[in-house]
């Protein structure tokens, strides 16, 4: 790993000042992706600004309309929080299946979505639930936030503060995990709110995307059988040693059916 300077600010203001003053800085959240990437020498920030102890980035609040989760909330905290389990149980379940227990104790919501790994779980939840991302300078709708492969709408130095999820009528998430990493080979999040259905797919493309045909079918009939006869084109889907594009296309339908069944049972 290359050398760097380490900073641990206690406030958003101090973090921003440190970022502006540094040559090639990067924010450090839980480090579960950044540290391995730095070990491989694929990243060499001059300064790491550890935002893990900034109070404004922690905490979970809920009311009858929305659930708001601070950016530095760990996957384990999301998974075990009663407020999350009661208002959006599918989100708690998703968090409980990221990586492994030790990774979930360090990895954070904000870190995950800022990285926008194409196989990460959270992007599917944010897009399907119609979440909004509050940053240090603005609010960004989830669909506008995830812009491409490891790319987001975040500007240089802009930091995620919290994510707000509107409470849905019901939701379900299913993934086909890579057996080693537990990243989603494909993951499908289905959410229904006031007769509207949103379906988001992760792991299959360069970045999370919505599946319009599946949404339309589930809006007509919110049951797994509604997806009989629907097929997804493999064009543009990821293909690697774990799964071909055609296999992933098929998985999208299979997992959408399971996610819809889960949502119905919720």
């Amino acid at each position, binding site marked *: 790993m290359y050398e760097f300077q380490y900073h641990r600010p206690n406030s958003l203001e101090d973090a921003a000042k440190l970022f502006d003053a540094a040559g090639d800085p990067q924010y450090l959240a839980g480090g579960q992706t950044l540290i391995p990437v730095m070990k491989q020498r694929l990243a060499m920030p001059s300064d790491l600004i550890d935002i893990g102890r900034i109070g404004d980035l922690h905490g979970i609040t809920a009311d009858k309309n929305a659930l708001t989760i601070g950016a530095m909330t760990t996957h384990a905290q999301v998974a075990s929080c009663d407020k999350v389990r009661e208002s959006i149980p599918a989100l708690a379940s998703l968090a409980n299946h990221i990586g*492994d227990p030790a990774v979930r104790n360090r990895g954070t919501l904000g870190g995950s979505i800022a990285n926008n790994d194409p196989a990460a779980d959270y992007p599917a939840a944010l897009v399907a639930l119609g979440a909004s991302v509050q940053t240090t300078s603005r609010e960004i709708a989830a669909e506008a936030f995830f812009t491409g492969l490891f790319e987001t709408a975040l500007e240089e130095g802009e930091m995620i503060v919290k994510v707000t999820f509107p409470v849905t009528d019901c939701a379900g998430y299913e993934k086909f995990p890579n057996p080693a990493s537990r990243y989603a080979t494909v993951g499908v999040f289905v959410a229904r709110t006031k007769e509207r259905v949103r379906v988001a797919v992760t792991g299959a493309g360069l970045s999370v995307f919505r599946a319009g045909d599946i949404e339309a079918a589930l809006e007509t009939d919110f049951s797994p059988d509604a997806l009989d006869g629907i097929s997804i084109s493999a064009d543009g889907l990821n293909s690697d040693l774990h799964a071909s594009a055609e296999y992933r296309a098929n998985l999208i339908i299979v997992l959408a059916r399971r996610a819809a069944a889960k949502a119905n049972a919720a």
Partner: protein
Amino acid sequence: MPQLSLSVNARPVSADVEPRCLLSNLLREHLGLTGTHIGCDTSQCGACVVLVDGKAIKSCTMFAHQAEGCEVTTIEGLAGEGTLHPMQEAFRDHHALQCGFCTPGMIMASVALARDNPALDEAAVCKGLEGNLCRCTGYQNIIRAVLAGAKSMRGKHDV
């Protein structure tokens, strides 16, 4: 070099280490606590699991400075004077180690798992140890040991 202060196995520790020093390196190279093993060094294998403020984490994927002010417990901090921790005892009783390399991480992860889940069953142990690999593939005895260790931990040991 920045100064770092934390508690390791209930003893206060200060160290001057580079920002890029990982917690696993601090424990092994600076404090001589070589019970924490570095297997893959890529946060896959779990041999380096320790407790930080009571939570199981992979010490190869945390900078030492991120543990400033924290309470760290390693495998060396489990046993009392002349008595093994119930989870260590269970691993011995059930022959839950072959080469033993994964054992410190397995035990630390299992202690946290048992403490956080009073009603552990086999499926919960399997899911709870997903992040710990045994390349001898001795999983059956590990599962037996964790279930037995969890049972004897109940009500009589606090970690």
